[in-house]
């Protein structure tokens, strides 16, 4: 590694966020904080996804006149990988759905026991 480039930096940030997210998820007792942990975790994963699509020195995969083209709108030499960007879109939406559901659960759980401490919800065990 001669110098740290953008790809490495964002990958590192992604991993760090994931670890932070895990830390939050595993240590926080408050359900809302756990959900926040998951959001951080998801963000980290999303950054990871995008950074893996990075191609050094290339631009966004939207074809307009600013992008160098060869042949008929062939931009293969000048854009970053569009696939992870498509995937991350899906991942974000899924993350949104899950978070929404968790929050709804949090509301239900709070209503049931008037607490958000996760270790209070262990009716089922063993």
């Amino acid at each position, binding site marked *: 590694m001669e110098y740290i480039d953008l790809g490495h930096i964002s990958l590192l940030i992604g991993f760090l966020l994931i*670890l932070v997210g895990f830390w939050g998820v*595993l240590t926080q007792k408050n359900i809302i904080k756990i959900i926040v942990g998951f959001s951080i975790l998801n963000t980290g994963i999303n950054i990871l996804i995008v950074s893996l699509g990075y191609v050094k020195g290339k631009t966004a995969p*939207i074809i307009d006149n600013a992008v160098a083209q060869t*042949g008929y709108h062939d*931009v293969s030499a000048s854009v970053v990988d*569009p696939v992870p960007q498509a995937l991350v879109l*899906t991942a974000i939406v899924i993350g949104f*759905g899950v978070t929404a559901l968790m*929050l709804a659960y949090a*509301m239900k759980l709070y209503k049931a026991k008037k607490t958000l401490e996760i270790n209070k919800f262990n009716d089922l065990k063993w």
Partner: protein
Amino acid sequence: MLRNILIALVILVMGYMFYNTYSNYETRTELAGISQHFAAQGAQEVGAANLVTAIVVTYRGFDTLGEVTILFLTASIIAFFLKLKDEDYDSSIDHRETSELLVTASQVLIPIIFLFGIYVFMNGHLTPGGGFQGGAIIATGVALMIMANPNVRLNYHVIHWVESVSGVSFVVIGILGMVLAGGFLDNKIFGQDGLGEFGTLFSAGAIPIIYSFVGLKVGAEISNILNKYQKSQKEA
């Protein structure tokens, strides 16, 4: 405390695992695999200037259908388990007075936000953005609306209709792709020549249509979820 140390250890090992992965990463200098094809041929095959959109709506349209489904599912689940009755939608709660600034600004901003949202999803095949982004923007408008007036009564019948019709339309277009073109969710339902002129609004076949429906659906779903959250608060 012991537990936290243990977890720290776990995180450390996980970090080690990630480090192994990280150390195998090398920054790419050129495209590889399928992305090569998308960059080279995508514009020609799909006719969308935004390659990401081309992938999201057409190449991987089936994923998008799943995404929409997830949103729809979430909304449905929240609906049945926050369990609102019809009269709950009309109920009001006591709340602190919202700031004047917010109320006034919302009156100005909401139409603009809606308009912007619609712009984003209609031009998803040309510019950054698309159905999800547009839908989300619309939903922020709704969020603003709720914040400005927590007792606002959204017409949930309209929301349901929009949600339902746009969802069904998405599926129908998908099936049309099978009938009129090469497969489920194929965007060339107007034929290869019907892709329109590259880079204009009416191009890329069914993509703008699908994305519009997606936008509407996403906007409706998220609004719906927000509305449910808001309305179910009185139970608390």
